[in-house]
C-alpha cells in the first residue's frame, strides 16, 4: 500500500478522552462574563457608554484636582494684582517670530480710555514672558495648614498669566475658579450625603412598615414636593445667622440643600421596598429573627443599590446648581469663601459684564460639571441593570 492510500483509508481517532459536555463548555471570555459580579457587569456596561465614560473621567480629574488646588492655581486665592484690574484674558503662545520658545504670554501695556475711564491693556509683542513650571510663586497655606509657595506653573518674573482675566480687584479669575471648585464640587457631595441618608431612612421606614408611617411620610413628601425648591432654599438660607463662620454657613447650606432634596430618593426607596418586602427571602430573614434595620439594609437595599447610585448621580448637579444660585443671589456663601456662585455674584451687574465679559467665565465649569453628571447618571441608569438584555 502506498502511503497515499494509507492516509486515505486511515481511521483517525482522537487520542484525547471523549468529553460529552465539550459543546457546552464556556470560552474563557464567557466564563469571565458569567462569573462576574453585578458591579463588574455594571462597570463594563458603563464603559461601553462612551459619553458617560468620558464624563466620568472628566469628573474624576476635577474631583482629584480639588485636593491640590493650591498647586494648580498660578496665583493664590486672594492675590490682588492692583496694577492689573479688569485685565482681559491672555492667551498662551508657543512661537514668537516663527521661532519656538515654549509656552509664554505677551506682556501688556496699560492705558486708560480717558472718556470711559475703562482700563485698556494692549499686548506688547516685544515682551515675551516665558512661563515657569514647578516654580515658587505666591505664598499660600496648603489646606490652611502648611505654608508653601510651590506651583505647577507661574508667570515669568514681573510677567503676568491671566488665562481667564482678572476681576475688579485684580485677582486672577482662573485661580479663583480653581479654588472655587473646592467648595462648589464638594458641596454637592456633602449635600447628597444628607439627602441620601434622609431618603433611605424615611423611604425605608415608609416602605418596610407601611401603614401610618407610610401615610405620614407620603404626606410630608407631597408637601415638600409641591413647594418650589429655590424660594424655599432662599428663605432657609436667609435665616442662617450672619454671625456664623464661613465653615458653619457652608454646612448650613449643605444641610438646607439636603433637607429638601431627599423626597425623590425616599419615593424610589419606598416603592421598591413595598414590592421587595413580600419576597420569600425577606420573609426567611424575618423568621430567622433579623431586625427590620438589618433586613432593609442587608437584604433589600442591595437589590437596587445601583439604581440608587444612578439617581443620586442625577441629583448632585441639582445641588451644585442650588448652591450656585444661592451664592449668586448673595444668600448663600459670602465673599471670603470662593465658590463658582460667589464668583458669578460679580456678574450680576449686566453693565459690568457687557464691558468685562470674562466675569461670566465661571459659568463654563458649572455647565461642564452639570452636563457631565447628567451624562454619567444617564449611563449609570442604563448600566444599573446589567442582566437586562
Amino acid at each position, binding site marked *: 500500500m502506498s502511503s497515499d492510500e494509507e492516509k486515505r483509508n486511515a481511521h483517525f481517532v482522537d487520542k484525547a478522552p471523549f468529553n460529552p459536555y465539550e459543546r457546552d463548555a464556556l470560552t474563557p471570555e464567557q466564563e469571565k462574563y458569567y462569573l462576574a459580579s453585578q458591579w463588574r457587569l455594571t462597570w463594563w456596561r458603563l464603559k461601553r457608554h462612551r459619553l458617560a465614560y468620558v464624563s466620568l473621567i472628566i469628573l474624576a480629574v476635577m474631583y482629584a484636582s480639588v485636593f491640590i488646588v493650591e498647586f494648580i492655581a498660578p496665583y493664590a486665592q486672594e492675590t490682588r494684582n492692583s496694577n492689573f484690574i479688569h485685565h482681559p484674558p491672555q492667551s498662551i503662545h508657543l512661537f514668537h517670530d516663527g521661532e519656538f520658545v515654549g509656552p509664554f504670554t505677551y506682556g501688556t501695556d496699560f492705558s486708560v480710555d480717558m472718556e470711559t475711564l475703562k482700563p485698556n491693556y494692549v499686548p506688547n509683542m516685544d515682551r515675551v514672558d516665558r512661563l515657569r513650571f514647578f516654580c515658587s510663586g505666591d505664598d499660600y497655606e496648603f489646606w490652611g495648614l502648611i505654608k508653601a509657595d510651590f506651583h505647577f506653573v507661574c508667570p515669568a518674573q514681573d510677567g503676568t498669566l491671566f488665562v481667564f482675566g482678572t476681576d475688579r480687584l485684580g485677582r486672577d479669575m482662573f485661580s479663583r475658579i480653581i479654588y472655587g471648585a473646592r467648595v462648589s464640587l464638594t458641596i454637592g457631595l456633602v449635600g447628597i450625603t444628607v439627602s441620601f441618608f434622609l431618603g433611605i431612612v424615611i423611604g425605608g421606614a415608609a416602605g418596610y412598615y407601611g401603614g401610618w408611617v407610610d401615610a405620614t411620610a407620603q404626606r410630608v413628601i407631597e408637601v415638600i414636593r*409641591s413647594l*418650589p425648591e429655590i424660594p424655599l432654599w432662599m428663605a432657609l438660607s436667609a435665616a442662617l445667622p450672619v454671625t456664623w463662620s464661613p465653615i458653619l454657613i457652608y454646612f448650613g447650606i449643605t444641610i438646607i440643600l439636603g433637607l429638601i432634596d431627599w423626597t425623590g430618593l425616599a419615593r424610589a426607596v419606598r416603592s421598591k421596598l413595598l414590592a421587595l418586602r413580600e419576597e420569600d427571602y425577606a420573609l426567611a430573614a424575618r423568621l430567622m429573627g433579623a431586625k427590620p434595620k438589618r433586613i432593609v439594609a442587608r437584604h433589600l437595599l442591595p437589590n437596587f443599590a445601583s439604581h440608587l447610585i444612578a439617581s443620586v448621580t442625577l441629583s448632585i448637579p441639582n445641588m451644585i446648581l442650588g448652591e450656585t444660585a444661592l451664592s449668586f*443671589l448673595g444668600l448663600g456663601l459670602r465673599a471670603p469663601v470662593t465658590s463658582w456662585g460667589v464668583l458669578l455674584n460679580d456678574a450680576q451687574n449686566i453693565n459690568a459684564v457687557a464691558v468685562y465679559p470674562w466675569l461670566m467665565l465661571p459659568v463654563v465649569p458649572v455647565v461642564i460639571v452639570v452636563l457631565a453628571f447628567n451624562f454619567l447618571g444617564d449611563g449609570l441608569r442604563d448600566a444599573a441593570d446589567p442582566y437586562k438584555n
Partner: protein
Amino acid sequence: MLTFLARRLFVMVPTLIMISVLVFVIIQLPPGDFLSTYLNELQSQGEAVDPAKIEFLKHQYGLDQPLYVQYFDWAWGLLHGDLGFSFEYNLPVTEVVGDRLWLSLVLNFSTILFIYIVSFPIGIYSATRQYSWGDYGFTLLGFLGLAMPNFLFALILLYYANVVFGTSIGGLMDPEFINQGWSFAKVMSVVEHLWAPVLVIGTSGTASMIRRLRANLLDELGKQYVVTAHAKGLSPLKVLFKYPLRMALNPFIADIGNILPQVVSGSVLVSVVMSLPTTGPMLLTALQSQDMYLAGSFLMFLALLTVVGMFVSDVLLAWLDPRIRLQGGVGK
C-alpha cells in the same frame, strides 16, 4: 366627576395647612423679631424709646402672644386676604405687592403654555421619526436645555442682547409704563417683553416634556393594535391621532405636577436676573432685609400657585381619562 372634584379639593386642605405651618416656621426662623430690630435701629440712632410705646407696638402686632396664637392670627388673616404687614415698607403687604402677584401668575402661566405648545409637536415629530437627524438634533438641544441652569442662560441672553443688539431685554414692560395704570398699550408692551423670560424659564421644562412625550409615544407605537390598524389600511395620521397619541397624552398632562414647582422656582431666579416686576426680586429683598411677613406671603403665594396648578392638572387628567375619575386615583 363631582365626587372626584370634591375628593381632590379635600386632599388639598391638609396640604395647604401643612405648607402654611412650614411657611410660618420659616417666618419665625431668623433670630429676634422685627420689633427688636426696629428698636435697635432706633437706639443706634440715639433716639430714646418709650417703654410704653414698645408695649403698645408689641400688643398691636400680637408679638406678646404665644406662637400658636400668632400662627392662627396670621393664617386667619391669610384666609381673608390680609397678608400681614411689611415692616420694611411700613405698609400692608397687599399694598406693597401690587401687580406683582398677577404678573407672576401671567409669567408662570405663559411659561407652562409655552412648554406645552413647543414640546407637543416636537415630541410627536421625534417619536414618529425616531433616529432621524431632526430627532437627534432635538435630543441634543434638549440635553443642553436640561443642563443649562436657567439663570445662567438668562445672564448670557442678557449679555448678547446688550452687546450684539444693543437693547436691554430685562424688565417686563417698556419703562414709560412702569408706574402707570393698566391700559391696552401697557398690556401689549408686557406681551412683547414676555418672550425672553418665558423662553429662558421654559427651556428645561420643554426639554424634559419632549423626552417624556417621545418615550411614551414610542412605547404606544410599538404595540400590536397599531400594527393591526396599519395593516387594515388606516391612514397613518389617523392611526397616530386616534389611539396612541391619546394614550401618550396622559403622562404629558400629569407631568405638569413635576414641572410646575420647577417653573415657579426658575421664574423666581430668572426674575431676579432679568429684573422683572414679579414676586422674585421682591422676595429676595424681603429675605435680605428679613422682612419676614412679606417674604412669607410670597412663599405662601408661590406654594399656592403650584398646589392649585397641580389641582388643575389633576382635574384635566380626570376629564381626559375616565379611569382616573371613576377610580378616584389622584394623578401624579
